[in-house]
């Protein structure tokens, strides 16, 4: 049974790419289209890692991270923020929200796998 990665992104193409990459590396992937959806799906199925975009309609990534950290079952789950903003402010905000780390977009599949492996093996 592969580890479960929840990927939250409003962009279908990015979702597809992330999902394909992780699935081909043996992870199980759950996709969510925005923060709200992500939160619901996270509640529905315990993920071993959450990858979330920052800029999304309805609920953004930071809000999702905060919400997840408020759930007992996600208190210690690695959460990576995928962001095009590599600014310090964004990183500080990510850290404050409770993110485990960040991955700057654009990234390539190898980079994604590399980071995911570092985090959940």
């Amino acid at each position: 049974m592969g580890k479960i990665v929840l990927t939250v992104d409003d962009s279908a193409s990015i979702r597809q790419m992330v999902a394909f990459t992780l699935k081909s590396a043996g992870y199980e992937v759950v996709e969510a289209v925005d923060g709200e959806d992500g939160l619901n799906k996270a509640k529905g199925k315990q993920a071993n890692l959450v990858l979330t975009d920052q800029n999304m309609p309805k609920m953004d990534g930071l809000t999702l991270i905060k919400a997840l950290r408020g759930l007992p079952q996600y208190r210690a789950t690695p959460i990576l923020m995928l962001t095009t903003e590599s600014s310090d402010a964004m990183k500080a905000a990510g850290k404050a929200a409770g993110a485990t780390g960040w991955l700057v977009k654009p990234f390539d599949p190898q980079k994604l796998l590399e980071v995911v492996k570092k985090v959940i093996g």
Partner: protein
Amino acid sequence: MSIDMSQFYQVFFEEASEHLANMENLLLNLDVANPSLEDLNAIFRAAHSIKGGSGTFGFTDMTEVTHVLEGLLDRLRKEELALRPDMVDAFLAAGDVLRGQLEHHQGGPEVDNADIRDISARLTQLAVGEAGGGARLETAPLKGSDTVRHLRLACLFPPDVAASDEAVNNLLAALAELAAVDTRHRPDAANGLLEANLTTSRSDAELKDALAFYLTPEDIALSPAAQPEESAYGFFDDAVTAPADDSYGFFTDAEPTPSGQADAAYGFFDQESAAAPAAAEDADGTFGLFDDAPGKPEALPNRDVTPGDSPAAIEGQGYGIYVDAPGGLGLFDNAPGATHLLKQPAVPEPQGTPATASSPTSAGRRLSDNPSVAIAKTGRRDTDKTVVATGADTSIRVSVEKVDQLINLVGELVITQAMLAETAGSLDPIQAEKLLAGIDLLSRNTRDLQESVMSIRMLPMSMVFSRFPRVVRDLAGKLNKQVEMKTIGENTELDKGLIEKITDPLTHLVRNSLDHGIEIPEKRVAAGKNPKGTLTLKASHQGGAVVIEVMDDGGGLNRARILEKARERGLGVSDAMSDHEVWQLIFAPGFSTADVVTDVSGRGVGMDVVKRNIEGLGGKVELESSPGFGTRTVIRLPLTLAILDGMSVGVGGETFIVPITTVVESLQPNLDDIRTLAGDSRMMHIRGEYLPFIALSEVFGLPGVEDITQGLVVVVEGEEGKAALFVDELLGQHQVVIKSLEANYRKVPGMSGATIMGDGRVALILDVAAVIRIGLANAKRRAAA
């Protein structure tokens, strides 16, 4: 593991065009004076998503444009800038460029580089104009045009960097990846100056990135060797940023980072230092882990911590690595740039460059920066075959041919059913009760099936209407008019074939309304109207037809002027003509009442083409106008091109179908009304009008009724006017399934197609305009003989 990114292209293309359409829509509806933050956010998100996707999938030309666009939008949504109409124009233009680029990636024509440069410059200018002197601007393009430039590079390195052969080698190697480097002065311990001539197609930003480990962009002087520098691509002074922070500007959108190696290696946050959240990151800044954050892998902090120079010492050089941070650089002993940055001769360079990174600079970005065109192209072909199902999408993509084939088959089924029904009609209703009930059921099911299948080809009118807000906006701007566009009934569905063909005529009508209909604001105010004109597009179902209306509240048609023009052109007109007849004049070829021929419309090639196109679709155009109140053009179209409402007429034992849209009236001819002219050609007098009298039996050489009082006349109206068609009998009115004659047989003059009647016999569908032409030609020939 290598993953073929091209398999994701199709989804990206669809997604990006959706975002573009959405963005345009939002922009057009934006209240410039008081834009809603929600809309600005949505527009920003659209640009942002395109940027993210295009970057990820390697369409960097789009990334560049969206990058500039996003920069400006971001400031708008953060209310750092006020929205201006020229910004909306620029955004729309940027959308056009992006759409062009998107199409190019899908195999379309290449976008003019000048357009891309123009729009980048325009957006940058807008940001600069508002930004004021020293404000930070982050909208330098990621990559320049494809044109090769010759540049002169000059920069001064800190002595400790210049003294290190390894550092200088690395740096020159990084530079050599981007440009042909002709080193004029190599930095050394005595003189840290680097002078070189570069030949490159890369942008300044990229070149500066290559040096960014050591220098801030503004410390790098890049000037064209031959021509003057393009201001649009220059870097702007970064007054607010401390020099130390800028050393890591791999990403042109990177914010200043107070900590050390911000955009460099993978890293964790140093929990001790509040001011320095980033201890070390991935070499290209593409990811990082927060040190004290939950969920961090436990094994990491203790692995390979590499003690290095004292933090202060490293920081003093313009970049800092908190080597004592848990899990610091050692975490990624293969992190590109990490060892290099530490400059630790004691630690050997890792053997072999990591798989994902080949240079000390932004490996992650570079990978996506350089997709080969060949990959993109072959990849696209691959994805063409895949059926793309996105997310929770419940629709499937089917080729139009398959749907057409289905429609064809259902058409056959309808005919078969009609044949069965007709045959069954002669059966004894009591004996064949069950069979008859079954046939009834069959006919109902067939009808339902036909409707369902037809609905597959139906598309909402919004497909056509959606392009008009932009058209109206651009035209109104060009004509200095204020126009508001309204659409009603955009959910009305119409056959796909018709949707495609109605776009051009509609565009013409909209242009006409804007150019000739709606007045300039001063004139409107003088007439006591709202300075802002209204153009309404309305679609609705009326019976078996779709009615599309184009309405404006402009000045209306000028009756006197039209009559005057018509006389000039030698058309037979009189002042006693009804309004309706006068309006019909503007459908005459080459007719224009415009005072001035503008580049928008008014060349007089138009309304006749509009009329012909719409009639070609089996539709009708009507005009209503009221001076001072506006004009309304009504287009009536059949729901579909596959089914026709027809009147069946009998001539010499054959059945012909007359399209109902062409039929004006049917009547019993009176012998007194028929006048024979020279050469045996006849005219029919109907309520003051003389119409050519054409006997179908003559046109098709059939043994029809000779006695005029024994037959019937169908008055039809074609492109060239009305005519009285003489037939033996009227059989009825049907919906018939159109079968192409050309596809099954060959083109027959006077016929537009064929259909199969309930009794299984073939009936030909009349091409009314052609029949009239043939009839008139026959008469002429007889007159000449």
